[in-house]
């Protein structure tokens, strides 16, 4: 007799991901969907997708979904949350071009208001969807299609550390940076996402989980090399850990 030992979570649709081979979005989508599934929310969850590689996230998360204008997901989520109230979980899923560049006003003020939403912030240090341009999170010296000689700090500043910045804001409740580069970190990432959603359910306040992610296609590396590059270059500049937890 056969026995099912593993099933895809019901909070992901059957739609095939459009993500490139080796991209971490697939892992992160699954973690978020599993957390939602395990919370047994009976449909009381609404997600907001960004502009960028995860623009089609509304096709993948199997719940009520919005697709927001570039960077505006926290404002859209605010409008949703103010209607649906504490019972319904509201989350945004945003990349670094979306959240850390064009959407800085919206994310900073959502945090300032203590908006009771969860933001999953995927940082891969580059604009993926448009083909590998420099992001606010691109590392100094990192070559992209708009920084062909490598990011020059004197010309365009140092990379933005979003978790550290938002942790300074009185209205933020829980901020953690995680990575999905190995099994241990994937387990930690899922725990962080679960904690953020639990805090929202308890009506606590603004929660953000920054997830460091690879972009093999636009970094010009194989998936394995990309994981190594993330460990050697991104994690030292973007240290993993809890930056704020008002309950701790």
């Amino acid at each position: 007799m056969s026995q099912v030992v593993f099933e895809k979570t019901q909070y992901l649709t059957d739609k095939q991901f459009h993500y490139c081979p080796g991209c971490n979005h697939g892992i992160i989508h699954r973690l978020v969907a599993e957390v939602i599934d395990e919370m047994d929310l009976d449909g009381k969850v609404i997600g907001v997708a960004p502009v960028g590689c995860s623009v089609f996230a509304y096709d993948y998360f199997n719940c009520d979904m919005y697709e927001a204008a570039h960077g505006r997901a926290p404002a859209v989520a605010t409008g949703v949350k103010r209607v649906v109230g504490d019972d319904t979980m509201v989350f945004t899923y945003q990349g670094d071009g979306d959240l850390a560049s064009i959407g800085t006003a919206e994310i900073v003020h959502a945090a300032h208001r203590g908006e009771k939403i969860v933001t999953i912030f995927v940082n891969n240090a580059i604009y993926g969807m448009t083909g590998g341009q420099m992001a606010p999170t691109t590392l100094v010296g990192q070559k992209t299609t708009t920084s062909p000689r490598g990011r020059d700090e004197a010309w365009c500043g140092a990379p933005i550390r979003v978790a550290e910045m938002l942790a300074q804001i009185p209205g933020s409740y829980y901020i953690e940076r995680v990575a999905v580069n190995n099994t241990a970190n994937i387990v930690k990432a899922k725990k962080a996402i679960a904690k953020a959603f639990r805090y929202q359910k308890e009506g606590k306040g603004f929660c953000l989980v920054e997830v460091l992610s690879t972009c093999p296609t636009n970094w010009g590396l194989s998936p394995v090399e990309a994981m190594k590059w993330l460990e050697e270059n991104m994690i030292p500049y973007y240290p993993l850990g809890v930056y704020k937890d008002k309950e701790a």
Partner: protein
Amino acid sequence: MALTLMKGSEAIAEAAIRAGARYFFGYPITPQTEIPEYMSARMPEVGGCFLQAESEVAAINMIYGAAGTGARAITSSSSPGISLKQEGISYCAGAQLPCVILNVMRGGPGLGNIQASQGDYMQGVKGGGNGDYHLLTYAPASVQEAIDIMMFAFDKAEQYRVPVLFLADGIIAQMMEPVEMPEMVDFKIDPEKKPWACTGWKPGDDPAKRGVINSIYIDTESLTEHNEVLQTVYKEIVANEQKWEYYNTEGAEFIITAFGTVARIAKSAIDELKKEGVKVGLVRPISVWPFPYDAVREAVMADSVKAVLDVELNEGQMLQDVKLAINGAKPIDFFGHYGSQMPTVDEVKAKIISMKEGK
């Protein structure tokens, strides 16, 4: 019912609440700041939500969020702020979200000034944001008319799944007039009436009913199909929702076209000219999109009409629609001011007299 003396901005805000609006997201800008001020005091009294956004950009995206749940949501601003909202307005139109947007127009371009203007006509009725879309757009000429339009604005927005735009010049918001305020409408979110809204779908429910509020259709076929849906709706609106007022058009020698407050100045000029033996009529578009082309043409094509005068508080923006309506059949002249200097009754009279004298 007794009349109450109310300031335009507060009367419009109260009417929105009476029409079922329970979510207001906005940002201060003169000359409409009394609307968010009023909402901040009033919304909590009716169990609604007032939230001051960090920008007009955020405010319209909060509307996008709230409207997608099926709630009645409204935002207000003035010209430069409405420019900032254009991105979100285009997304609302693309995602077919019913909502109401108030533009209390001030002088422009750029920061312009804070006095009344009609300089955003083109922005309101010819696009504003990106893409092929229209907003059901009304231009009230009195505080009472703004209230009356508000009482059906959400119904129309929901019937057609389009944003409704009010193009009100600053005078409408700033002046006080005696008004009759309608009774409170009992509005509740009804998922049966709004099957497209995000109201709590769960895995196992009919996949076709999952709420997806969205304006991206990445392949050409599906975007074409989506735009055909939008254009079909716009055709229905054009067929069913044109509103206008005729004033003294019967037997008129000249027809004035004007909207909003300027139309009231034109009426005063028409009344004075009548006493002086000059017959002048007015066609006042109330819906400026859809523009009442046939109504304008019908009034102008009467045998008695020699010429048309379009009067506006801008450089002649509606004039282009008036010209389209008449299509060269009769002479058209224009009188207007920009820089928020309101045309006077004497100026309008003098212009008509000069037209009569063939100058």
